[in-house]
């Protein structure tokens, strides 16, 4: 698998000189499977640049096919959807797997974003590409381009967010953004999903100090992320979904602190800070 980060930020895009290195776009990650199939996880504003990068290939000619996994419907995970150009090319086909209880609810979330008072296209059915919606059920495995995919609902403040496990060609990738565990950290269900991941992309919105001030947000600190990674036996942890107010310098510090903590407590976990444009081989 080849994983590329297109947006690594939480809440709202963060512009300005302070976010140029890690990037200011909201959550969007692609996974290129060994079969060549493309999986897109979340559609924050990073999806716009992803769409632009796909113009020259089959997606520019209406011959593209991709799977989109949506962790949940908060803005920073869907707001790039209306600006994802391949959706406007007839012939392209997208299978959207989302964390709503049924396709009807998923449709309502996506259509709510596209409604006439908010967006000129008025419906995602007007965009041109063919879109199929699939409601994801917790723990039920499904297949995407030769890979096995399984989801688990993590606590996320008053709501939940799905984490995804992708097993492809003997390797395991897990995406767990917007997780806000109760005291004690990730529970058995979450750890089972993350178990032995070669790469765990985990919510690391805050420093532990800032998280303590914002427990109700349902988000993690780098300590929570590292703890989950170590307990699940993950080999590599990518810190992800940084707070919009953190500058590159702040994120550098988060990454340094997480690496030092890993070196002293969980030396088996290799820590990397996700950044826009970063590609990792799994």
């Amino acid at each position: 698998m080849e994983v590329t980060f297109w947006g690594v930020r939480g809440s709202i895009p963060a512009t300005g000189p302070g976010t140029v290195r890690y990037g200011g776009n909201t959550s969007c990650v692609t996974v290129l499977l060994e079969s060549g199939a493309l999986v897109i996880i979340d559609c924050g504003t990073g999806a716009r640049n992803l769409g632009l990068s796909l113009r020259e290939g089959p997606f520019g000619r209406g011959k593209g096919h991709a799977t989109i996994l949506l962790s949940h419907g908060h803005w920073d995970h869907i707001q790039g959807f209306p600006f994802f150009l391949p959706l406007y090319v007839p012939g392209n086909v997208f299978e959207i797997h989302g964390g709503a209880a049924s396709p009807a609810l998923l449709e309502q979330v996506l259509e709510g974003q596209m409604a006439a008072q908010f967006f000129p296209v008025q419906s995602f059915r007007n965009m041109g590409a063919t879109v199929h919606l699939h409601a994801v059920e917790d723990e039920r495995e499904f297949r995407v381009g030769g890979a096995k995919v399984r989801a688990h609902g993590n606590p996320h403040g008053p709501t939940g967010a799905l984490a995804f496990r992708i097993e492809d060609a003997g390797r395991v990738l897990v995406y767990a953004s917007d997780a806000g565990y109760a005291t004690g950290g990730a529970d058995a269900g979450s750890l089972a999903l993350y178990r032995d991941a070669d790469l765990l992309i985990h919510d690391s919105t805050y420093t532990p100090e800032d998280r303590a001030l914002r427990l109700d947000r349902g988000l993690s600190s780098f300590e929570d992320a590292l703890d989950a990674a170590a307990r699940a036996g993950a080999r590599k942890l990518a810190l992800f979904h940084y707070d919009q107010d953190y500058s590159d310098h702040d994120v550098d510090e988060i990454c340094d602190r997480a690496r030092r903590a890993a070196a002293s407590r969980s030396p088996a976990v290799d820590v990397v800070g996700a950044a826009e444009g970063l590609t990792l081989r799994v």
Partner: protein
Amino acid sequence: MNVRFWGVRGSLPVPGAKTQRYGGNTSCVEVQSASGTRFIIDAGTGIRKLGKELMRTEFQSGHGTAHILISHTHWDHIQGMPFFGPLYEQGNKLFVYARQRDDVHLRAVFASQTEAHYFPVPFDDTRADVSFRGLSDFEDFEIDDVKLSTARLNHPYIATAYSLCVDGAKVAYVADTAPFSDILFGEEFIATPPPAGQKPPPADQEKLRAMRSAVVRLCEGADLVIYDTMFTAGDYRLMPHFGHSRPRDAIDVCQDAGARKLALFHHAPERSDADVDAMLDDARVVASKTGARKLEIVAAFEGLDVTLGQG
């Protein structure tokens, strides 16, 4: 009066190295009269930083008042609202103005932005005193020492232009709008551009002429006109049905209105700083060729401050 730009971008925020000088936040402009009456025009992501700034003033203790004028409720004009600090402080008074609709109440439009699927904090949990006022097309009204006028714009699902007069000066905000020539926008989705050279039906042409005249009246004698110039001439040829103007459309309106200064605004997300520079150069050439030599043209950027009239 003082005009300050907090977000100058259209469509969606664009962080990154290529937008450092003009800024990547979506539409938000602050206007303050010398006596302190405060307006915020549109609530794109630029309003987040404005909110932080305001939370260092009387808004921090819940003693702030602001009038928020919304041109229309497309995302790039409202998506910063849930991140506006003063909204969460009890005692602050926020008056939100936008065009009245028959179908949806304004509060419902804003509240649906923060429904549980989309945002962790529901609108009803915000603590400021927020009231909504629906405006009819072409309504004139006054707030404290400021005289306001409105005009209907030519944009999908309809947008409103505002002018504000105070301190012996006038500023007009004209976004978003298409030119008043090729397509009459209403509430329907327009999927494809009309065939090249095809004029709208005579009844539509008449409505477009009247709409343009009202916009020219709104901008008449303005010291500053802030205008949606998202499109280059080439963009417009491909996307006349998207509802945005070119610099030459803005220059023509400013010239007819005798306006003194034009701020190009609502830059397209794909426009790098160098691209906006080039658009500004082109616009100045267009103005000098069309006889609008006296019109001063700038391209709006985040942090641009313009003082008009007496302070």
